[in-house]
């Protein structure tokens, strides 16, 4: 049995998991900053 | 009071349930993690002998599926009951059985279907032979909707009770017994090379029966709980 698909599979899954774990906070942070800025803009308009 | 047609109400409810489920997704993962943990406990409890695990695999996996489903059933109607939405739904004039069915379909998609998807992993842990795996998946595809359907009746009956969750399990486990027996028999038979289509056929019959009857029973139970 060729070992290559197992090796490739492992590293692929490793890459996907690490990539996803690394990107999740970045994406969430962009969303959060957008939300907070919008709220800040609204507060300033009121004042 | 609503002039909407019933199919539109059905899809509107489904969409709402998915949105709510997405917001509570951490909560929904718990029964699934429970499924994994409970399955793990069996080899630790009975020993890792591959033959023993393979023998008890159908039963263990199905029991773990039952336990995980019961955990997810308690919250089926509870939050809507607590904030009054359930009452509004009953008063809305839409057929309550349809509303119940929408809830059940959503429940199966977020709680039952994941069990089906996780079953290969459970089969691997319990050493279930390859011949049994496809029948296991089929039995779960047929059986988990039945679990949601019958479980909804129990959930509706206990929604207004304080310790509803514990009582729910007591009510619903006896009702699940035929399903458990048929499903595990089908899987064990397929591993042993014996016929299994009879068991699967009966399970399908059970699915059809509960699909047509359970929503009405659930509706009646909801009306009962809210008076």
């Amino acid at each position, binding site marked *: 049995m060729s070992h290559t698909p197992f090796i490739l599979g*492992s590293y692929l899954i490793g890459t996907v998991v690490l990539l996803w774990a690394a990107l999740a*906070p970045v994406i969430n942070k962009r969303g959060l900053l957008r939300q907070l800025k919008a709220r800040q803009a609204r507060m300033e308009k009121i004042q | 009071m609503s002039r909407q047609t019933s199919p539109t109400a059905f899809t509107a409810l489904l969409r709402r349930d998915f949105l709510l489920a997405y917001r509570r997704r951490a909560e929904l*993962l718990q029964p699934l*993690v429970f499924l994994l943990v409970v399955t793990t406990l069996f080899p630790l409890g009975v020993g*890792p002998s591959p033959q023993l695990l393979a023998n008890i695999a159908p039963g263990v996996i199905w029991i773990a599926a039952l336990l995980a489903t019961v955990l997810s059933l308690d919250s089926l109607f509870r939050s809507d009951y607590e904030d009054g939405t359930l009452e509004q739904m009953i008063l809305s004039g839409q057929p309550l059985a349809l509303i119940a069915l929408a809830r059940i379909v959503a429940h199966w998609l977020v709680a039952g279907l994941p069990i089906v998807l996780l079953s290969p992993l459970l089969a691997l842990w319990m050493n279930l032979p390859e011949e049994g795996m496809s029948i296991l998946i089929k039995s779960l595809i047929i059986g988990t909707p039945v679990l949601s359907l019958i479980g909804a009746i129990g959930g509706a009956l206990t929604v207004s009770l304080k310790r509803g969750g514990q009582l729910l399990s007591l009510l619903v486990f006896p009702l699940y017994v035929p399903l458990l027996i048929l499903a595990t028999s089908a899987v064990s038979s397929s591993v042993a090379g014996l016929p299994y289509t009879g068991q699967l056929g009966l399970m399908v019959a059970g699915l059809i029966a509960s699909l047509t009857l359970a929503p009405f029973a659930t509706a009646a139970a909801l009306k009962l709980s809210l008076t």
Partner: protein
Amino acid sequence: MNRLYLFFHKTGSPPWFYKYSGYLIPWLWAAFLVLTAIGLYLGLLVAPADYQQGESVRIMYLHVPAAWMSMMIYGLMAIWGFIALVWRIRIMEVLIISSAPIGAAFTIIALVSGSLWGRPTWGTYWVWDARLTSELVLLFLYFGVIALYNSFDEPRKAARAASLLSIVGAINLPIIHFSVLWWNTLHQGSSIGTSGNSIHPSMLWPLLYMAVAFKLYYGANLLSRARLRLLKQDHRKRWVQDLLTKEST
């Protein structure tokens, strides 16, 4: 002594932490990428195949560092948890809960890569031996900490609960490992393990590169998550408001 105290006191301050970790993160990512490139080059292309296991031993360069990280992170969570409970330092609480998903990710990688290593090498995807079982239990412990934290409304209370659970889990982990080891020796079955020989240098270097690389990954990811959590928790505070207005200009 005074400067050291001042340093620790400053790092406890969220805006200070936010600012300086922001400088550090790109360097950590860069170092991670460089070391990973070297490690993978050495491991996948330069190092020889194992004479018993064949090519599949190359999975080791992913699996072993991931497993080391999964345990190291949990240990850190427990130590920081203890500090956070005793001294109530908020930054520690943030670091603990930000570490948990990263630890869980490494545990999953260790489990999956271990499973894929097992199939071609020893014939099976899974076996209930001490190491694999303990690693699986570790994954459940991580899930537990994350779930516990998410079920509280108040962040500081949630963090204290998570800290307590981490400490209990960390104490339990060696006990779990040894009990599973004992349970396993009762049954003659499978015991997968690397051969007792010491490791050849051409295989050791890629392993070490990957191990350090993963630590850098953890550092970068941890700081990134911790900053996000601080923003979320402090969004009403002045330092965040100032940051937002500064960014908009």
